[in-house]
């Protein structure tokens, strides 16, 4: 009789070296063993609980709570279950059952997580253990409500690479060939006075003066003026991002804004129209007029063509993801999987975002027209579109560091409201500001990497790691809503960057099939025939639905790579031996067959 399946439970824990090591080497069977701890992490309490695993039934275990994580180890001999959950991932803690609860395991806590799972613990009714656990968890999972610092500020981890140096805007713009005759770098927003949600450094048309910029800012929602995101290295067309114009019901105009867009158009003389992509559905853009917003109508902006991309707002996306969770957690809808998947609309939204980005990229690349992208405020859908279009157009962003720069630039520096959208350390789980916009972007990237498995330097683990630390609060990377807030909090000085973790351990995140192809434009096929639910992310908690890790093609490829390296080494040795023993050819080294490890490939 073999022992019950063991290792399957713990493989889903968040990426964390220290944890991996302890759980893999088997030492963790000793009850008294220490729990994994990061420098700066402090153990708060531990409790004996019953973890109600939705897949394998109740498991008795001990839960440890620190100021960073909740860690549970099974106390049962036939289970090696380990749960390792950063408290940042928790969105809601609820008590289940009351004093009168009768059923077994019906009294305890139900914890809803941002990464599409729920954790349920049953506790003993006597001794206030539930109240203690509830209070401690609430305190450390939602530090903002308790005037406590977010863990990233307590984290004392040291890495041999500093992730904060990855992105330097001046360098990145220089890489793009900027400034040039038509575009200049401006420090007008140095103190975030022009626009408090924009970065300090902006690239604007050479012919637009600072005074022009200030006037344009008055006509753009939250002063988010059109600025350059990317310039095509050959045809010099550009992707420009901004927020909606403040047209309002009365159809207001702003001469400076009109002229400014015309100046942008004139930087590219190949076509005489500027293309504006409004990410919203037409009706929403019209409706926005009621609150002072709107869009660029063609009778005012004569030299511009406007297209709507029909991407829905943050509320629709949030509800859609909720529905995804409903069909995958804890049990995967079986007989009607496809129609349930369709009813979540999740992939449909992905399709629209990708379609929009393809249009932007195609317009710039083959349409040879400069493009302005905006939605309402230009920090959600706009960020998705510009960054995805840039990923399609510029192979640099498909490398690990390039992607980090892309995220740092288009998302973090341009004020995607990470704090509001994720709700770091905030207890208000029902906040209408929360929305999985960044997750949706990463999903789109995953879809692209799935369609083009050789085009990206990073692997799936890289993307999942980014998403895990989007919530974990271990790093400062995704904290706060904008650069000005981050600067005020001295985030780069007081916290560690996620890119430090990744870049100091790059091999783990590399795609072995990566083939660098400069100037290759990558157009994914935005058809439902090819889009898939990202099972390895959304359904990773379910042990029944587990993709083969590592995938067999990759595994074989790695074997071959190792073999190739060995042969090359062998050849070099032979060469050396040869030149040394030219006089004595009979003394040949051992037969080659002895040197060849067994490979599962028939030639």
């Amino acid at each position, binding site marked *: *009789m073999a*022992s019950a*399946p063991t290792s*399957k439970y713990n493989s889903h824990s968040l990426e964390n070296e220290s944890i991996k090591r302890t759980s893999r080497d088997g030492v963790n069977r000793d009850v008294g063993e220490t729990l994994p701890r990061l420098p700066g992490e402090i153990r708060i309490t531990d409790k004996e609980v019953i973890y*109600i695993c939705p897949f394998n*039934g109740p498991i008795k275990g001990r839960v440890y709570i620190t100021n960073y994580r909740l860690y549970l180890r099974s106390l049962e001999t036939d289970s090696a279950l380990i749960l390792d959950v950063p408290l940042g991932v928790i969105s809601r803690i609820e008590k289940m059952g009351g004093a009168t609860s009768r059923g077994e395991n019906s009294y305890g806590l139900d914890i809803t997580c941002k990464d599409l799972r729920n954790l349920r613990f049953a506790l003993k009714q006597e001794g206030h253990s539930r109240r203690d656990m509830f209070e401690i968890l609430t305190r450390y999972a939602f530090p903002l409500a308790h005037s406590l610092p977010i863990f990233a500020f307590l984290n004392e981890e040291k890495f041999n690479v500093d992730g904060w140096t990855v992105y330097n805007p001046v360098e990145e713009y220089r890489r793009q060939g900027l400034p040039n005759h038509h575009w200049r770098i401006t420090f007008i927003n140095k103190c975030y006075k022009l626009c408090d949600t924009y970065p300090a450094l902006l690239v604007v048309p050479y012919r637009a003066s600072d005074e022009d910029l200030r006037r344009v800012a008055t006509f753009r929602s939250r002063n988010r003026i059109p600025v350059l995101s990317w310039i095509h290295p050959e045809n010099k067309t550009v992707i420009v991002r901004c927020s909606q114009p*403040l047209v309002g019901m009365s159809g207001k105009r702003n001469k400076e804004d009109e002229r400014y867009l015309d100046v942008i158009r004139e930087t590219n003389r190949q076509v005489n129209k500027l293309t504006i992509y409004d990410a919203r559905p037409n009706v*929403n853009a019209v409706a926005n007029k009621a*609150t*002072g917003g709107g869009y660029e109508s063609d009778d005012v902006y004569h030299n511009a063509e406007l297209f709507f991309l029909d991407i*829905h*707002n943050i509320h629709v996306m949030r*509800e859609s993801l909720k529905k995804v969770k409903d069909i995958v957690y804890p049990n*995967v*809808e079986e*007989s*009607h*999987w*496809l*129609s349930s*998947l*369709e009813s979540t609309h999740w*992939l449909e939204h992905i*399709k629209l975002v990708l379609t929009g980005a*393809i249009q932007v*990229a195609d317009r710039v690349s083959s349409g040879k027209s400069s493009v302005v992208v905006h939605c*309402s405020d230009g920090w959600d859908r706009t960020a998705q579109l510009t960054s995805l279009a840039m990923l399609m157009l510029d192979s640099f962003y498909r490398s690990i560091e390039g992607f980090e720069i892309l995220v740092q630039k288009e998302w973090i520096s341009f004020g995607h409201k990470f704090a509001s959208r994720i709700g770091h350390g905030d207890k208000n789980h029902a906040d209408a500001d929360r929305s999985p916009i960044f997750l949706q972007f990463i999903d789109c990237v995953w879809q692209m990497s799935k*369609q*083009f498995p*050789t*085009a990206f330097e990073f692997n799936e683990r890289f993307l999942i790691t980014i998403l895990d630390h989007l919530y974990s609060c271990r790093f400062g990377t995704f904290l706060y809503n904008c650069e000005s807030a981050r600067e005020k909090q001295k985030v780069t000085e007081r916290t560690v960057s996620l890119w430090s973790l990744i870049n100091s351990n790059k091999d783990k995140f590399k795609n072995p*099939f990566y083939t660098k192809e400069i100037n*290759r434009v990558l*157009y*994914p*096929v935005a*058809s439902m*025939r*090819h889009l*898939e*639910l990202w099972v390895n992310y959304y359904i990773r908690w379910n*042990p*029944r*639905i587990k993709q083969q890790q590592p995938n*067999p*093609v*990759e595994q*074989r*490829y790695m074997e*071959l*790579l190792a073999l*190739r390296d060995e*042969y090359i080494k062998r*050849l070099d040795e032979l060469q050396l031996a040869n030149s040394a023993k030219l006089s004595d*050819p009979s003394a040949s080294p051992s037969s*080659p067959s002895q040197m*060849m490890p067994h490979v*599962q*490939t*028939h030639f």
Partner: protein
Amino acid sequence: MGGAPAASAGGRCERPPLLPRVAATQGGGMLGKGVVGGGGGTKAPKPSFVSYVRPEEIHTNEKEATEKEVTLHLLPGEQLLCEANTVLKCVQEDSCQRGIYGRLVCTDFKIAFLGDDESALDNDETQFKNKVIGENDITLHCVDQIYGVFDEKKKTLFGQLKKYPEKLVIHCKDLRVFHFCLRYTKEEEVKRIVSGIIHHTQAPKLLKRLFLFSYATAARNSPATDPKKHAVMFDTLQDWCRELERTKGNMKYKAVSVNEGYKVCERLPAYFVVPAPLLEEDIEFFQGRGIPIWCWSCHNGCALLKMSALPKEQDDSMSQIQKNFSDRIYRTVHRPPYETAKTEDLSSNFLSLQEIQMAYSKFKQLFLIDNSTEFWDTDIKWFSLLESSSWLDIIRRCLKKAVEIIECLEAQNMNVLLLEDNASDLCCLVSSLAQVMMDPHCRTVFGFQSLVQKEWVMGGHCFLDRCNHLRQSDKEEVPVFLLFLDCVWQLVHQHPPAFEFTETYLTVLSDSLYIPIFSTFFFNSPHQKDMNVGKESQDSQSRPLNLLTVWDWSVQFEPKAQTLLTNPLYVEKPKLEKVQRKGTHFKHQRQLSLPLTQSKSSPKRGFFREETDHLIKNLLGKRISKLINSSEELQDGFREFYDGWHSRPPSYQGLLLPHLEGPEIKVWAQRYLRWIPEAQILGGGGVATMSKLLEMIEEVQRLQEKIEARHHSQEALQAEAASPPRTSGRLSSLFPFALLQRHSSKPVLPTSGWKALGDEDDLAKREDEFVDLGDV
């Protein structure tokens, strides 16, 4: 038969040099070719097809066109029946449409379009060229549905036509869609070709008129390769004995020759295997019905058997006789406590053939796409369209049934007796699926081909009727074998290293169902085949016809193309030294499946136990809970077996189970999407990583040779130049099939996308932020 070309001396199935050549240009100077639209790679602005070139204009480039003479290649025995010139084949590419002028012909084997080979064939196309069926050839059996376009309206064509269409649309069984515009074709030629095609593809045929026989007659003298090289044919007693030996089934089962010459019945093969205690009289009693016929033996001695049902009897005394007979026969496989058997009635509580037929006819429509607009229109509702066809669900049910049977064999040590009216449809499917999962031998090319021979060809699956090759009854047309291939594809897709063959192998095998030069899929039973090739008939003076087997892939593909059929990821069984083989044979058999680790873990960890317990305790009370538990016992055993297997790392040389969860059952994209240009990812898909892998294999191989070379001749070292590693061009994700290469790098853009969200409308109208943007 008229002036058929005499059999060429070469007589092989490749195109022999002496094949008759028929010039493309015929008749009053009317030209057969010319390229219309999209010339020079410029895209046509309009999505709908309009030809701006009239036939008169084409005359102008006559000289140039005649230089490239397009020839019709005929197989031995193949005859040209009718033809039409100046037919425009519409090609959909990107969103623009182009056309190629050419000649449309119909022979007794195929419909062929002979167009101007305007572009040299691309590398990958030539690499995977079919030697029998050209890119623009459609075998008559491959035609699924013919439509005519009259005034922009598409109508199904059948029977006698009063009016002839301006455009012919042919949907093929391998899911290709051809559009032939007849607007510039002479009226009498239109009549001839349209009615010819309709007649030869749709009118009921006699078996003897199959092209198979003309071909075999014409190629009679050609040396056919020995079929035994490619698969065990199971047409001799020896073959069955060896299979018994291989699976260690020879202790309890015996091969019998009672049906030699089909004396007992025509349904069964001449030789088959039954339980050892069974008497020959018993087999004869009901003409082989009600007899457990052996399929395969498991390492633990349990066997998978199949049985056709006894005829329904009204008469009481007869039914009593039947009952006694059945009970007696049943005891040959069910003798508790030594061995027990479980009967699995596939005709009553599993799938029906009608369900399969219905599902597939809905499913295939999703891929027979006429144009880009249709593609994007169906894209929005893609998942629900897929689901409403139920094809994927049927696949799941078949795989699940096979796993249930395996659980009985493996975990419960029971014989499993599959029961079906004729034991020739679902029995073939379920039994061969179970064998693919349990027996790694069936996952090799040789083993798989032998399995199809054993369970399907010899098992009497009515290929002729199920594929409707004779067009005699649409009702009988059910893609059971295709369903099997799709189930196997799911396994191949989920566990690539476990199979010696690739998905491309399965795809070309599915295509081969419609090529009537191979006998494999063109008979309803071995009896029918033997009767028709002259093996059994008395009157034939000449020696029996030599029919080709589909398993000789060299008939269809050059060696280079054949490499795409074998899987570089395959984890081979460790090769044993010859001396060792005998001794370790038994041990190897034991490895067939995983060691029986029946970890009867504590019940609280059972599937859904938590939920049901909860439900029971709170709602139903104790009495009902007992009922529920007992009925769930079976399900529990299955779940435990299934979950247990999946919690361990897969052993590719042992038992192999599929994932059955919703997201894991997928569309066999290579087969179904291969002809749809919109679905191509240029330079992407699994093909991209696979070709990198192949490049690496080549490189490693080269290095290996270098090392070896250095050992043998040290002088050669200096001479050799470092050959740069081969880098393949960007392949389509649908390689090696993608017929239409997309030349431009334009993205494909959905033409319709946005739709109302229904219940979420109120959310959709909301603002992202609840802040007023200032004065209005």
